[in-house]
């Protein structure tokens, strides 16, 4: 690993500006209508009237429980955007190394009806075009996704076109299963990746 910092002054996005899932479900659940998240002084927990019947679980939420929430691009983004960059204690999201539009989920076998196999493709954009850590970052993203997704998902991590001088080389490395497996046996490399994943929430 290069000991010298390669890009000491990258551009950083403001955390508040990163894409997040608006808790639309939560808002409508609190939902005495349009009060939204604002009306905190009327929050039910602080001023509710609890009846004497002890453990009485309200079964009102049963309708919502039925609604399925499939894994979507935002969820993938949330999984990988909190990975730290190996050079800076800054998240990949804030450095715009990963971004929401560059994540896609597609059926792996579009011709087979009812197949639930999915392929996730993630394009990463290194902060500078000659970044030798691009492979490590790609590997980190891959490891995080493989740890966090059910078996029916295939993961495809690549460097975004035109963002890196040796993109083809790196992509080949990242796509080669055996090379990835070999890399994951490497203690030092796994140490670096474990450190990157520490900040994942």
């Amino acid at each position, binding site marked *: 690993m290069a000991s010298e910092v390669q890009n000491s002054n990258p551009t950083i*996005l403001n955390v508040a500006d990163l894409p997040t899932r*608006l808790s639309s479900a939560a808002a409508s659940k609190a939902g005495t209508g349009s*009060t939204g998240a604002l009306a905190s*002084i009327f929050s039910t927990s602080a001023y509710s009237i609890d009846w004497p019947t002890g*453990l009485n679980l309200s079964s009102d939420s049963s309708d919502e429980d039925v609604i399925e929430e499939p894994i979507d691009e935002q*969820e993938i983004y949330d999984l990988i955007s909190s990975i730290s960059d190996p050079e800076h204690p800054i998240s990949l999201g804030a450095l715009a190394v990963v971004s929401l539009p560059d994540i896609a989920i597609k059926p792996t076998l579009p011709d087979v009806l009812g197949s639930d196999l999915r392929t996730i493709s993630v394009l990463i954009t290194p902060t500078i075009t000659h970044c030798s850590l691009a492979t490590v970052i790609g590997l980190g993203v891959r490891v995080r996704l493989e*740890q966090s997704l059910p*078996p*029916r998902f295939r993961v495809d991590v690549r460097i975004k076109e035109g963002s890196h001088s040796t993109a083809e080389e790196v992509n080949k490395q990242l796509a080669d299963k055996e090379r990835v497996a070999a890399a994951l046996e490497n203690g030092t490399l796994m140490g670096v990746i474990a450190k990157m994943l520490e900040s994942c929430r």
Partner: protein
Amino acid sequence: MSALQTFMLVVDHDKQEAQQIAERVAQDVESKKTTLIEVVQSLVEYVNDEDPILRGKAVSFLTAVIKELPPKFLTRQQIQVLTTFFCDRAQDGGAVAGLETLQKLDRFNKPLAEEVARAIFEQFQDLQSRSQSQRFQVYQLLNELMLNYRSALHDMGDESLVGIVDLVTGEKDPRNLMLVFSILKVVMVEWDISTHAELLFDAVYNYFPITFRPPPNDPYGITAQDLKDRLQDCISSNSLFAPHAIPSLLDKLDSTSPNVKRDALNALIACIESYDPNTVSRYSITIWETLKFEILNAQEEFLSELSLKVLQGITKRLSEGITQISDQLPLAQYLRPITKECNEQLREPQQKQAKPAQQILSSVSSASAPAFTLIVQTVVAPLLTIYQEADGIAKQRALLDTLGVLFDSSIKVFGEWASRDSELTFENPLLEFKDQFSEIFGQALMGAIKEEVSFRTSALKGLLRLSVLRDYFQDNEIGLFVQYLDEILLKEESVGRDDIKKEAITALTEISKHKPRLILDITFPAFVATLPDSIEEADKGYMKTLDVLAKISVEKDIFETLVRRLLSKLNVLLQREHSGSVEYPRAILLTILFVMNQRKMEEDPNLEFYYDKIVVSLCRSAAAGSTSPAPNNILSDATVLDVLGRLCNLIVRALPRSKQDEIAQNVYTLFTSTEEFQPVPFAPSPNASQKRTMILSTAILAALPADVPNLPYATNPNMSALLADMANRATGETEPATQYAFLRHLALLANKFLPKSDLALASDLFYALLPPGSETSRVNPGTIHTLFWLSKGLVLRLAPTTTQHLTSLLALVSSVDEETSLTAARSFSILLRHDEILSATNGANIRLLCRQRVFTTLTPQISSRIREVNLSSSSAAAAEPQPQTQHIKPAHLTALSGILSTIPPPLVLPELPTLLPLLLQTLDLSTAASTPVRLATLSTLAVIIRDNGVAVIDQCGHVQSLVTRLLSTAEYSPANHHPKLRVDALNCLYLLAQTPGSSSSGGAESAAPAIARTGRLSPLLPVKNQVVRALRAILDDPKREVRKAAVDARAAWLRGVDDAGDEED
């Protein structure tokens, strides 16, 4: 044998004996039986001996004798002779101690001190080859001379300076160094060191950085920090050290160890604080050039913070005594390269190094008014230019934030409106840019598209800072900002998480502290105007309005106005004909409750007014309206009465005692006359509205002190009839809110107002409701609730019959009637649950040990009962199933989880071996009805695991069974339909794999991996594969929150549970 000989024989092994000998000789000298000369002469035989040990012992004898003499006994000549003698013999043991004794005597003098000092310097050239204790004695003597005869040493000038430095050079013992540093510091501060600055500096700087680490159980208790502090004091003691100190300290910043760098930076700060400003000025730019790197490419946060402190320290020193700001000032010269660098970095304000540049500006500009002025002059104009040319909103936003940093500094330097500092001599340099700021920030806040939340938020924060900055904006300018905020809150649609609205509320609250008038004049009318005058017109918008009003009404005048306006609004509503939803009037009351809760009502000057308008008037309306036709249903609605009750409770509690005594009579009449309203207790057939007023009565009663006189129905002859009436009404009541009021009223009476001597009355009532032996037959739910609430009142005060009551209640759970059993089981959580009426705030009688008692009484009984059921069901399984007892085990588990949910975890822990099997059995329940029980169990488990780690589970031998049950609870299946169940189970799994107790127990070791700590493999290792595999399937749960929890749990197991313990062992 002479005294001397005896002394020399015993001195090594019997200190006490030796001292006694010396005492005797001293007495002889004192009483003139012998003379000092004879004592000295007796030494002759030994003081010239070849053996240094013998010589030492002989000299010690003399020292010991002198020590025992009274301080005024020796004449000046004698002291002189003795001093000379000891000085000659300084190298012999005991001589140094003798000198130390002599210099304490009254007749010792300056020339002698000089002689002693010289003797020390001459005779101890080889001091460092001697033992630690000998060196310590010499330093101690020197230190004493420093204290008592400093002028003598001072007058010796360079001789003493060089002498001392030579003497101490090479010292390594930390105890000695503590003394050495303090001696040297005196020399550094008081001597003329101009010719020997480097010598002195080197004498102490050789020890930098201190790497001493005290041995374990060090009896002297000297820490590295003690040494560092003294060393730092020395380095920073004299400006003449600057040419040596500052370059050396800056060099140390090249070190790879962050600790060395920390010490160097701390020393730099100390130097800057104590060297004279001219010296500081000479090195200021050099220091900046070096520290720049530390801040812009921060390795560690604390190093960057310390570096910023250094820069700020320099700025403060260079600002001293400035009356006129000019470019020629040393301060200006120092700031020039700094602002240049910052300007350069801030040109691209989104890049990583813009942040440290902001920090530099912040710490330097907040140091003083002149510094702030100089910085504003060079920084603001370029920033504004970049802003105008900026190509994107993100960049503009970063620039607004940078300006915000300067505004913060400005507040630090010039104060806020509300702060009462003295007037400053300098004008705020930001005034020059006032119009530009108004325009840019106003435009950014109101002109940007609504989706640019973070950009608008930055603008809002900037304007807020300028609004609270003292003597900056005019009132009309702040007023304009307030109008912006009103507009944001009242007119704008919600966007995203409503961050901008939250910020707007915070801003209004902040402004209300500084300019309450503006809020009252602008915001209040605008908001109150949107509140509808009748319920029919009320759309949900009023909630937002009330919410905002409540939050900004922190300041006294605003609070008062708000309450008055809301009360008159409420009165308008009460006059109108209406039936239907009462949410709007209830929200108004809730708002009043919220703002009153924020204030200390006891000190409120308008308390009487609130009492009349809210407690007396509204309660009377509620009571009178219950028996006669009222225009609307507002005051007969249970939820409205509940809020009104809390308000009354709050106000009555704050009233003076005399007033409270008066109120006692009105607890049930509710301030009505007899014609208007008949109180509920003992009323023959009250209607539903009438009974509902008990909600108010209960809340008011709870606010009264326990020993209040004149409580109705309480003393005629005792409370028995009232208790029975309440219990009776509670049992038969069908409306839940009213029943709740009766139940709490009963519990309140039994807990707080029933005299200790009359406790038997409550116990009698208990057995009247539940005759002994009737526990296993059918009992109606109303009676069960009454029993539990009555018991709650008694258990909290630990009445003598507590145990019997608890046992009777538990017997209900074994009832063959399923409904009785389940109702009772669910009610166990009532006993200790927090209740707003029976609370410590209301002065309820809550004993500390009541939780312990409930837990230790009930848990063993539940545990043995479940074992019984398990046994009988397994033996009966072959024969014939017993359908009427199948519910008993789940019911007991329900009761248990109800109790556990109200017991603090530390109490639970000792019982864990008994409890854990029971808790695991609750996780096996799979009916929908058991969901709350399982949730309660999971939250208990989560707390236990979080605080104590996997070790406690392992000690009970249940890791495997716990993990298996957690995994099956986390699985998506009809039994685990409720997503929270699955999330909580996953959370427990996550906590299992976390290293435990890093915050609580464990101490320094807790940072090490689990294996290294316990010295063996993690107990989780055998199940790791099972967990990781099972969790992979759960990653496909249909609910997002469950998947999130599964991801976290799986990551924790992959990361935290090590395959091999090869880290350290």
